[in-house]
């Protein structure tokens, strides 16, 4: 479980903080669709459900780069599966993220973003999906009941589900038989590109999320993930050390201080860890204010 939590934080932090980097190369795409959905908007705590990201572009590409997932700080990531299919209409990207919520309440998931050069006008754009609001319910009857009662309730539920399903199917068949035949409607016009939202996510937004991540999980592992995410945000590669990164951004003193604080939080000894993480959170909050 801890491994998944760490993975979730890593993905979340890296996703949120992955703002355009120094040497980012954007794909040239005609984005037709970018959506974020869930297989339920009222999930129960401790029951897994799925978030589904779908993107459609007119070009045939082997992969879609620069898709950034939102911060899933209130959910635990259990798995992630990406499929990319190509056909005559272009490319469809589908990512299914298996998650579980541990706390009841309303959770808002920020939009997924896709950075690309718009093939129609040649301009770099950031496309946003819809956001998603989840109303996480407490544990359901089946989850809280004893095993025998749970089995009985599940049996009743299955019978009712079959009955309701059967009635619905019958209603659909009757409706189809009674429906007068009409000429096929014209093919729908292709969707216009997703409108750009009024404000793109800023560095301050990303740093605020990073502060929340670190505050929620003030461990060394979390500090290391946030450190790596901030380094990616300023365009550092995996091979670069702190000194390399600082040299690349000579005039950004606040960022120097933040990177140093995160370096300390990631590598200091146990006795100093709590203080180092606090110092890093203070820096993150000061820069996101």
């Amino acid at each position, binding site marked *: 479980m801890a491994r998944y939590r760490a993975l979730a934080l890593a993905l979340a932090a890296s996703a949120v903080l992955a703002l355009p980097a120094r040497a980012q190369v954007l794909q040239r795409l005609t984005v037709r669709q970018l959506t974020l959905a869930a297989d339920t908007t009222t999930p129960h705590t401790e029951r897994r459900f799925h978030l589904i990201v779908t993107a459609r572009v007119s070009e045939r590409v082997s992969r879609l780069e620069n898709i950034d997932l939102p911060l899933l700080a209130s959910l635990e990531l259990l798995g992630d599966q990406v499929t990319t299919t190509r056909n005559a209409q272009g490319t469809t990207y589908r990512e299914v993220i298996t998650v579980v919520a541990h706390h009841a309440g309303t959770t808002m998931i920020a939009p997924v973003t896709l950075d690309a050069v718009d093939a129609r006008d040649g301009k770099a754009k950031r496309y946003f999906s819809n956001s998603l609001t989840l109303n996480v319910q407490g544990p359901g009857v089946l989850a809280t009941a004893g095993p025998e009662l749970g089995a009985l309730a599940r049996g009743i539920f299955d019978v009712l589900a079959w009955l309701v399903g059967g009635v619905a199917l019958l209603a659909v068949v009757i409706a189809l038989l009674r429906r007068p035949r009409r000429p096929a409607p014209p093919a729908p016009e292709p969707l216009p590109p997703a409108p750009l939202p009024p404000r793109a996510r800023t560095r301050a937004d990303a740093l605020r999320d990073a502060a929340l991540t670190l505050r929620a999980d003030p461990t*060394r592992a979390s500090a290391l993930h946030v450190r790596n995410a901030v380094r990616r945000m300023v365009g550092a590669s995996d091979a670069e050390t702190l*000194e390399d990164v600082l040299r690349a951004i000579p005039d950004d003193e606040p960022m120097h201080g933040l990177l140093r604080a995160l370096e*300390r939080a*990631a590598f*200091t000894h146990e006795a100093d860890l709590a203080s180092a993480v606090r110092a890093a959170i203070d820096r993150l909050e000061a820069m996101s204010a």
Partner: protein
Amino acid sequence: MNAHPQRLIDAMATTIVGQRDVVEALMLGLLANGHVLLEGPPGLAKTLACRTLAAALGGEFKRIQFTPDLLPSDIVGTRIFDQHERAFATVLGPIFANIVLADEINRAPAKVQSALLEAMQERQVTIGPQTHRLPLPFLVMATMNPLDSEGTYALPVAQMDRFLVKIDVGYPTRDEELEILERFAVRDTLPLEAVATLDDVARWRAQAHDVHLESKVKAYIVELVASTRERERAYIDYGASPRATLAIANLARGKAFLGGRDYVVPDDVRAVAPLALRHRIGFNYRVTTDGVGVAALLDRLIAAVPTP
């Protein structure tokens, strides 16, 4: 006195123009209790740097000029017969000092090099029936001249491995050379007063030894050393030994300590890795014939390993 190592570095800078890397590497050797091999053409202040460090520490300094006719007893000492006492007396050699400069170590034959290197490793010398412990701190700084290879005896790989660090001493920049001219053309080098004591060194070593090395940084060090055995096979006959792993860890702790930290960061490892790896990797002739160069290849090896 409770001096800080930076004070020692600053004091050395009053005598040594430039060569900050050399001075820092000497300090790292001192903190990590390891010996230092300096390679560079004549006239680049190698001897002066060693002498200045000894003076700044108030320790005893001895210089041994290695020549083809040098004998082991010329280094470690010997027993001579005292006519008055009618008994053998032990005369300790120049190795009994805190800082020993072994100048042009590759000019002496293997048996003399071995005598020195055994003393370096065991920090004690046996003369006749008696074993004598060497003073603490005990630091050997050996120099090699890469230009005159005629009449030299190359150090065996196993003996090179005994040196904690190897420093390539380079030529000064134009500005530094101008400063050398202005500083020393009109007067001799001023004798340096001691700014730290041998007790300070012992204390610094204890503090540097306690510097925290996080598990991810340890893994990074292991990965770096392992990469010397796995990458760049066209240019490397054999990679670094586990002694290199220990050396990098100790040097990185020293580097962090000099930086005023009690924990090591990947930058420390990256900075000291060339010092510990340069002489422990078996580079083959293609490094020269292909015009790659040892320093560039080392940089490439190190840069290829992702930092934690």
